[in-house]
Every structure is written in structure tokens, then in C-alpha cells.
């Protein structure tokens, strides 16, 4: 590892369309400097995934995204062995390449990132969707930033290195740089303790107590889409959304509206030519409800409460 830091400092507010809290930016800088993966948790719609693109954009480096599926295995992020194609090729006696394994091995995004050793952001999205063994299998790779291609026979190590540029043991080049690794989780499954210990942790909360920052977030998102919307509408919508969330929390809603819903809502209000003052928290119309709430029970509960209060 070189002595001078390969990454510039992340301030959290220079990317288009994203504002990170100062505390979050500090933890991200800490993770970058210590070379540790960063686990990002928080309620849905608070910008966990977009944080990765904001870091990449601000630091001017590439972003590699890997979305985890319920069937994903740690190996799928590193490399792929195409056994079927090899079997198919083996049918042709003239095809001599099928006698070796290495032409059928391809590195996957994380494998590439480790091998290239250049500054970049690697996002492993929704790690909790995979099986409970997945984070454990990934632990060692993220710790040492090297891995073995177990499907490649040791006898083909040199041949593979010459033909493909990587051997059985894949590691970064001399003087290479560790990528910044971000892992997001929705807490669907509990993550193993050693994995949590290895990562630095950041919780993205909805900044309900910072209306100024919320308005900034909305403004940045709208600027990125080149939409001009008045400040009165934005601040009015922010204030109302905070009240809706407060009420939603009292009602025990499953999914409270968050930042992404707020941005959509402001745009909808703008398109409809409505003013924020005209929106009453007590009587949201069907469009507002469709934009803000994602669960049917939540809509029903909110409606019942507002009807109750209105004495209907």
C-alpha cells in the first residue's frame, strides 16, 4: 500500500443529487483510510445505494455495482467457470482449447476490482438477501483482497497467467490500491458477528430534525433533473412530510415515507400545480397517498385515523 492516501477526502455535498450528513462523511473517510469495508444500513428510501454513486462521483472514480440475489454465492462475485461451454466445445475433436480449464474462467466484477488494484468504488447491494453463509464466505476476501480460483487446476497456473493475465491466486498488482467497498443491508437477515466486526458501520437515518438538509437534498435531486421548483413548495412539502412521518410512527406504519418519496412527492405537487399550503396532512388525496405510502395496510390505517379525527 502506498503511504500517500490514494483517495481524496469525501465531503458529502459535492455530488449532484446527494447530500451526506457530516457524521456519515467522517465515517466514510475513516473506512477509506483504514481500508475497511463499510456496511450501510437504514430504512428503505434513505439513499443507501445512492451513497456509493455519490462517493464515486465526488472522488472522480469508477463505480462497480453487484446486486446480491437470494441464490447468490460469494464465488459468483469473484469468478465464473463455464462448464457447459467447455462440455460443448469438447464435442469437437478439433477444438483443443477444451482440454484446458482456463479459457472457460472469467472474472466477475469483484474479482476484476481486486485484480486491477485501481481506485474505484465497489457496491455490494442488499447483502442480506443472500443465504446466511454468504457474508461469511465473503469475509476473508474483503479482509485480504485476494482469492483463489478453486476450479482452476494448479497445473494450469502458469498457462492461465500467460493467456489471461491472472493465475490461480488472484491478487492486486504491486503498489495497487484497495477499492472502496460499500455493502448495503436492509436487515432482512441478521449478519454474522465477525462480518459486522470487520466492517465499519454507518446508519443512514431520515434527517427529520434537519428540515434545512432535507430541503437541500430535494433541491439537489431536482437540479440533477434540471427541474425548477420554487423554494416555498419544497420547504412546505418537507414540513408536511415530517408531520406525516410523525403521525405514521404513532400509527406503527410498516414503511414510513423517506427521502425518495419526498422527492417524488415534490415533483408530483409541482406537476399538478398545487401549493404546499393547500395540502392538508389530515386529508391527503389518493395521488398523495399513492406516492407516499407503499403498503396497503399503511394507507388504510392513515385514512382511518384522519377520518376519525374529522369525525367522519
Amino acid at each position, binding site marked *: 500500500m502506498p503511504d500517500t492516501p490514494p483517495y481524496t477526502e469525501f465531503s458529502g455535498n459535492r455530488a449532484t443529487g446527494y447530500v451526506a450528513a457530516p457524521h456519515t462523511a*467522517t*465515517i466514510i473517510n*475513516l473506512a477509506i483510510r*483504514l481500508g*475497511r469495508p463499510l456496511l450501510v444500513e437504514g430504512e428503505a428510501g434513505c439513499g443507501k445505494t445512492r451513497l456509493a454513486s455519490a462517493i464515486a462521483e465526488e472522488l472522480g472514480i469508477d463505480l462497480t455495482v453487484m446486486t446480491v440475489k437470494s441464490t447468490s454465492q460469494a464465488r459468483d462475485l469473484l469468478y465464473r467457470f463455464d462448464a457447459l461451454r467447455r*462440455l460443448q466445445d469438447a*464435442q469437437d475433436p478439433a477444438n483443443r482449447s477444451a482440454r484446458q480449464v482456463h479459457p472457460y474462467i472469467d472474472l466477475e466484477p469483484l474479482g476484476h476490482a481486486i485484480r486491477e488494484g485501481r481506485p474505484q468504488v465497489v457496491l455490494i447491494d442488499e447483502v442480506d438477501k443472500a443465504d446466511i453463509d454468504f457474508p461469511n464466505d465473503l469475509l476473508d476476501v474483503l479482509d485480504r483482497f485476494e482469492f483463489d480460483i478453486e476450479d482452476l487446476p494448479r497445473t494450469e497456473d502458469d498457462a492461465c497467467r500467460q493467456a489471461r493475465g491472472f493465475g490461480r491466486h488472484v491478487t492486486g498488482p504491486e503498489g495497487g490500491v484497495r477499492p472502496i467497498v460499500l455493502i448495503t443491508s436492509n436487515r432482512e437477515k441478521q449478519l*454474522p458477528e465477525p462480518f*459486522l*466486526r470487520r466492517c465499519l458501520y454507518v446508519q443512514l437515518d431520515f434527517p427529520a430534525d434537519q428540515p434545512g438538509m432535507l430541503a437541500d437534498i430535494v433541491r439537489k435531486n431536482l437540479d440533477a433533473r434540471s427541474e425548477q421548483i420554487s423554494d416555498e413548495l419544497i420547504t412546505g412539502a418537507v414540513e408536511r412530510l415530517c408531520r406525516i412521518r410523525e403521525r405514521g410512527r404513532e400509527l406503527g406504519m410498516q414503511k414510513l415515507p423517506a427521502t425518495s418519496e419526498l422527492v417524488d412527492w415534490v415533483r408530483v405537487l409541482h406537476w399538478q400545480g398545487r401549493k404546499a399550503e393547500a395540502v392538508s396532512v389530515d386529508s391527503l388525496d389518493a395521488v398523495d397517498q399513492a406516492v407516499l405510502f407503499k403498503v396497503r395496510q399503511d394507507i388504510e390505517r392513515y385514512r382511518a385515523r384522519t377520518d376519525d379525527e374529522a369525525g367522519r
Partner: protein
Amino acid sequence: MSHTLPPLLLGLFRELKAHGVPVGVRDYLDGIEALRLGFGHGDRAALRDLAVALWGRSDEERRLISRWFDVLPAPDGALTDAIHASLSALDTHDSDGTSPSGTAPPPGRGSSSGAAPPVRPPPVEADAQAAEARAAMARVAFAAAREGSGLPIPRLATTPQIGEDYVLIPQPLVSPRDLAVLWRRYRRSTRHGPRTELDLAATLRERCRRGLLCQPVCRPRRSNSARLLILADASPSMDPWRPFLATLAESLPLGRLGQAEVHYFNNLPRRQLFATPGLAKAAERDEILRRHAGAGLLVVSDAGSARGVLNRRRALQTATFLEDARKFCPTAVWLNPMPRSRWAGTTAGLIADGPVRMLPLDAAHLLRAIDILRGNK
């Protein structure tokens, strides 16, 4: 490069260790490295945030760290000012170009206006003074009276903040994840189902035999065919362990077992078993046992030890049930959530002397229980 940093945060680190937080030496070294890189400087809150980011992974751990900082005595104002003055003077001196590389002064330290410009000391002496002053500053501000100590000390001299120290959070006895991992140890790996996996050896044989390959040979995937029947006591004496029973039921689908079911009973598995902990949806006990013939049997019940009563009739009936059940389920184990010391003189004590092994409910004995279910007596 030599580090002259004092053992900052050592007291906190030891306290976390003493509370069973699984932090290691590497985490501590990362803390030292972060301090060296300039994180956590400035004030106590910044250092606390750094400690939380590095070492706090659950709400409980974050609270532990915050509390440690809250109860630290405030540093002596006059002494801190003096150290600040001397440090800022040295910083001015460092910026003249005599500072060794890599030991940049931490950001955020304000310069003291009242400090008289000191006579410039020789460089080596200046470095030593700087290190000494920083060490003193660190001890006074952060580690204070408890530096070097580690064991949790009862601290009720000051009134704890209500809402901070006495927030009781229910902690699961065993997490669903740990239970799922346990179930995965209960394996009987067999191949069955649709032929979806390539059988390479058979494919090669076929190729050699015919001289050409029409289609690859497939075989069923390996899967776990281990089956488990859990009978859980849902009587009022088991109320404290209701959350555990819920976790148990929740973890089963994650365990990748061939077949796994939980049924409930009240005190003793009589003729009927129930599908819910509220003892609803009854089904014939013998029918259920017949359906699970060959599966492992796990019984979870305090067997009267929670109330400390001895009921010979219940013990006899339980023994008869276990005898009947073992005709269908050759491997059986009993988990009793009460500690072993409370079994003697109760119905549990009598049942524990029977042929079915009774184990207390903790991580080590859960492992043992799985071992017994796998057939290792």
C-alpha cells in the same frame, strides 16, 4: 516510524472486553491508526463518535461506549489550558518545517491567544516535549482516572440519566441466525428430486462407451433429508421462554432441513398436540408421530422445574409418552430452559433420569442436542 501515542482509549477498550464485546487487538490497532490519521481529535464527542464507529455494532454497545464517556470526570480546566497553550506553541514551531513527516498536528485544535511566544528549543527537545504534552493532554481529557483499569466498576455516585442507563431491551436467548446455523449441522445428505445436476463421471463414461455424446447425464442434487419434529411446552410456566419458542419456529425455515415442524402441548404431550403456541388447531398426537416416523424428536419444556414441583404422576405419564415416541423417533433429546441446578427434586429430575437425555438451554448444550439428534450418543 515510531509512535509516541499514549494508550488512548485503552480503558474503554478493556471495559468493552470485560462486557464481552468481541473486539480484538486488530480493532484496537485500527483505533490507534485512526487517531494517527487525525480522526477523533478536537473534543470528547469526536473521540466518542470515533469509538462508536469503530467498535459499536449494536445499540447496547453504542450505549456502553457513550456511558463510558459520560461518566469520565471533566478535565482540570487550568491544566488543559496550559497544555493547549504549550501544544499550540509547539504546533507553530512544527509548521516552521521541523515537524517529522507523518505526525501532522490533529485538526480542530484552536490556538490559545494568551500564550506568550516561547523561546525556540532545539528540534529534538521540541519533539520530546510535544509528545509528552500530547500524552498528558490525552490522559487528562480522555482516559482520566480509569486509564489502565478495565473491569466494570459499579458507579452509582452520580445519578444516572433516566432513559439512558435503565432502558431494558429484551435480548434473545439465541438469535434466529445462530439457531439456523445449528439446524444446518443436523444433516443427512442424500440425492433426490429432479435430475438437475451434471454427473461428470457418468457423462464421460457415456462418451467413452458410445464414442459421441448425445446429451449430458444428469443426477439429482444433494439435499438434506434430515427431518425434525419439535414438541414445545406452551403452558404458563414456559411464559418467560415464549420469545425463544417463537425464535425456534422462525429459524426452522432457514435451517434447510428436509422436513421440520413444531407442535405445542400443555405441560405434557397428551392425546392431542396443537399447531399454535395459543394451543389452537388440535391434531392427534399419534397421527403426528406416525407422520414423522424416523425424524429426530426435540422436546422443549421445563417439566415442572420452573415452579419447583414434584408430580410423580406427570413424570410417569411423560415417561410413557417418551417410550411411545421413541418407537417412531429413534433419536430424541429434551431441552429444559431452567438451569440444571433447579431440576433436582422436581418432575424434571425424574424425567432426566430416564432414557431421553435432558439438557439445559445454552449454546454449548444446543450443539450437544444436535449431536444427539444426529445419532451420536
